[in-house]
């Protein structure tokens, strides 16, 4: 036996934001002018951002991200 000490928890790290909610995708979607009502998620606060939308699917002025 050795004096080993590292367990899985010892080397675990806080996860990065999942790539499926990463900002590049989100920015692309904003540029496309997506109508949030069509996305079935109106209004929504995603993990990628706290940007919210009005009833017309337009981003509210204040991006809280």
């Amino acid at each position, binding site marked *: 036996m050795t004096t*080993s000490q590292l367990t899985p928890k010892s080397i675990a790290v*806080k996860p990065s934001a999942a790539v*499926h909610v990463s900002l590049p995708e989100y920015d692309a979607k904003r540029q496309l002018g997506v109508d949030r009502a069509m996305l*079935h998620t109106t209004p929504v606060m995603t993990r990628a951002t706290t940007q919210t939308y009005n009833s017309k699917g337009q981003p509210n002025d204040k991006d809280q991200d």
Partner: protein
Amino acid sequence: MHLLISSVGDVTSDLICERLAEDVLRLNWERWNEYSIELDKKGFRIADCFGRVVTEKTIGNIIWRKPVATVDTEPGEFWYCFHEFKNAVESIISQIRLENQRKIPIDPLLNATADKFKQLRVASQHLTVPPWRFTTTPSKHIGTSANVVTKSVTGQPIPGTGDFSKVIYTTTVDPTELADGFPWFLQQEIQATHDLTVVYVGGQHFAFTLDRNLFSGMDWRKSIGTDEVDESWQATTLPKELTDSLSNIMNALGLRFGRIDLLAFNSSCDDVVFLEVNPNGQWAWLDPFLENGLFDAVVDFLISR
């Protein structure tokens, strides 16, 4: 009408829904109570608050996204109802799988294809695979390989390690410091110049490289959210010999879709090692502006008959 199973925070699903417009009913797990569902021995009916309806007669494909949102972690009536609802939906999916498996182009429940060890065994017949070992007694193998990384087989988070439970990315370790009695997946450390990820879509290969000088450590995922990584994946064309090998691996695994991770020793990708396949891997970030053909190919695949 296609049925897309996801959660509200899944931006990839947002993009897919925008493309499919009126041909998709999106079911967000955490908003289960905004849908109506009927299920009996004859069939099923799911309706959303927009008036979209899918039944056993009208359903197209099931687009089953990986994320399942946490639904009220406090046990109670809402938690109970969600799991009753989810069980019924999964039963519907099971029945569709039984009748026509191709209606679920990417099926997260086909766990056999996610068997990493099987992948490594199969891949070694076609490509170089770094030596690996799964062990609960790393002390027995000290000295067998000087440079070792450890990684998670399942990607599961470790509960109780913070608000966002910690995970294990690929990490260089000194095997003499690993405790016996714990499960360790160990693999020879590879000093490569590029990460190479290939989205395999029904026989097509969409390849992207990332210069490993742009981030520190062994695992690019630790640097997600930095411009150096997020904006630096480069589309590339693979040598035919490599695409043939990848196709052979996917065929041997019975996979029509997956994101294959490799390491490359140069930007032309004529010298690579295989790491793994994720049968339901994320892919949309590689085509964020819908311009290199990947997004179109995946959507076509998801709705193909």
